[in-house]
């Protein structure tokens, strides 16, 4: 009996496939809605997932157990001076600090020049905590900081702009007219500031890393307003924040909005929450396309049932039970929408792959998205195929045969 049911099912599948393939243009147009819906879902999920992964990787590169202090200051006191930095460093949970200054300068070397080179001024600690950043040469050390040495590390963009085809190590370049010696190069893939560039839209020809003390000189400032704080223990983050708040409140006379302490970890959480909300929203919108596609399938199935009234009547006369007719038409709807679903998965993956390779977003095969797309399309087939199949199975064989 089970075997018989199974053969019946296979029979239905082959009949459905025959019907579907007999009118390819119509099949394609009908499934187009499903294809677009599923492709949209897959593409959105894959791209958003990829973007989230990329951002997380950037956050991870900035490191756990790292806090960032952003000082807004007051009219009289715009940033932190050396003594105050030292006081922060002396906090119990603080292992090290690295001031961070950013500016854009014009760089020149021989005949080559660029007026949009980003300068990152960092402390020696920064390179200690981002050891993979250094590609060639040496990093900026404590002595460079103290002496305000005019040394720099350059990234690929700068090397291409100013040292095309040369080994830049040991060569000199001019930043806003000041002479700097290149002591090292940066590995871009590990460059945490890349994320900052994406966020703040910094479109520069390249990035140069210099001692922060030297950067202060370049910018003509004597205070620091942004710094990274490295903690002794990531688990002590809350205690460290509290400690620093007391200190900074003292420095800025308990005024509001004078500084912000950014916790990377909580920022990652917030970002993940945001992206997952965005994802559900986008998938929700894309699902509308799927519903519209489902209605297309339903419409086509209703037309098919009407067109094939005689066939249905004949099948009934030859001994088909209503249930068998229903399964045949339901199967046809399911196969149609599954077909659309599978094509949609491929289209979606292709589209998201193209988006990803063109935007530096990580591409990963989101199996969940694929499973969701296929399941959704099958469900659409069942839901929207049900009514037409039911209609077919309820047709009176006499009326059906008489409609010739």
């Amino acid at each position, binding site marked *: 009996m089970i075997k*018989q049911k199974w*053969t*019946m099912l296979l*029979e239905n599948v082959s009949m459905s496939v*025959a*019907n579907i393939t*007999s009118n390819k243009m119509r099949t394609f147009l009908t499934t187009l809605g499903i294809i677009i819906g599923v492709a949209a879902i897959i593409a959105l999920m894959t791209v958003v997932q990829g973007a989230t992964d990329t951002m997380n990787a950037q956050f991870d590169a900035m490191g756990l157990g790292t806090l960032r202090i952003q000082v807004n200051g007051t009219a009289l006191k715009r940033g932190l001076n050396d003594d105050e930095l030292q006081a922060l460093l002396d906090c119990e949970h603080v292992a090290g600090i690295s001031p961070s200054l950013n500016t854009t300068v014009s760089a020149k070397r021989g005949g080559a020049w660029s007026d949009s080179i980003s300068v990152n001024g960092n402390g020696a600690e920064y390179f200690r905590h981002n050891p993979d950043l250094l590609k060639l040469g040496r990093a900026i050390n404590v002595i460079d900081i103290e002496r305000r040495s005019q040394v720099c590390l350059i990234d690929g963009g700068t090397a291409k702009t100013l040292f095309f085809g040369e080994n830049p190590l040991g060569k000199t370049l001019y930043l806003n007219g000041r002479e700097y010696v290149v002591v090292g190069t940066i590995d871009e893939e590990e460059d945490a500031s890349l994320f900052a560039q994406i966020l703040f839209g910094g479109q520069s020809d390249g990035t140069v890393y210099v001692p922060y003390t030297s950067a202060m000189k370049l910018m003509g400032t004597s205070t620091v307003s942004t710094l990274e704080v490295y903690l002794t223990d990531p688990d002590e983050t809350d205690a460290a924040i509290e400690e620093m708040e007391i200190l900074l409140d003292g420095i800025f006379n308990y005024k509001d909005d004078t500084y912000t302490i950014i916790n990377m970890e909580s920022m990652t959480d917030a970002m993940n929450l945001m992206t997952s909300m965005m994802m559900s929203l986008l998938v929700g919108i894309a699902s509308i396309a799927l519903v519209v596609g489902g209605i297309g399938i339903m419409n086509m199935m209703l037309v098919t049932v009407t067109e094939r009234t*005689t*066939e249905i009547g*004949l*099948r*009934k*006369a*030859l*001994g*088909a*039970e*209503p*249930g*068998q007719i229903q399964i045949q038409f339901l199967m046809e709807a399911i196969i149609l929408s599954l077909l659309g679903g599978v094509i949609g998965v491929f289209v979606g993956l292709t589209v998201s792959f193209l988006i990803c390779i063109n935007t530096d977003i990580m591409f990963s095969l989101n199996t969940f998205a694929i499973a969701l797309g296929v399941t959704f399309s099958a469900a659409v087939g069942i839901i929207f195929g049900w009514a037409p199949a039911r209609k077919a199975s309820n047709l009176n*064989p*006499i009326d059906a*045969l*008489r409609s*010739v």
Partner: protein
Amino acid sequence: MSSDFFSMREIVKQYRMGEEVQTILKGIDLDIEEGEFLSVLGPSGSGKSTLMNIIGCLDTPTSGTYTLHGRVIRDLDQKQLARIRSREIGFIFQQFQLLPRLDAMKNVELPLIYAGVPPRERARRAEEMLVRVGLKDKMHHSRNQLSGGQQQRVAIARALATNPTLLLADEPTGALDQTTGAQVMELFEELHEEGRTIIMITHDLKIARHGSRIVNILDGELSEGVIADD
């Protein structure tokens, strides 16, 4: 007298058209013996199609008793009626009703699929039936590669495939020309000689005469007609 093989008693069929009730069949009594070739002769509108539908278990009577092969056809649901159609009745239609996308073999296999016959056995029986109706070399032709007469032969093979209790033909030559119609009728007579029970519904006396017995239907009432002469 009542036969267990095929008997109809006081069969009434009414259709409700809004407020009005139309009586199409007004108490039909009919008995058929196994192996008979019965022609039901009647003009259009006489109720012969309705009668055919009831005989073919496509429809149930409003009242009366219909016994087919020892089974009383009454108050059965669609599923049970489908079972009976599958096992007991082979339909032959005026318009042949072959499915266009399937070849002759597949068309003949169709009722066997619904009867739950396994694929290999299905193919064997379909082949046998097509050979029987003289279409040995047309097994894989599709509908539009076959002439009208050939299509009707395929339809007959299809009706024979499940080895039904009775063959039910509705104007089987209605869409054919004289010559091919005559050939189809020859085939019917052969089947009759083999011992098959055939009920043929027609409006054409000449065609009706091929049967071994003729009944007339007029305005929903049945009367025993002329026994086929010669």
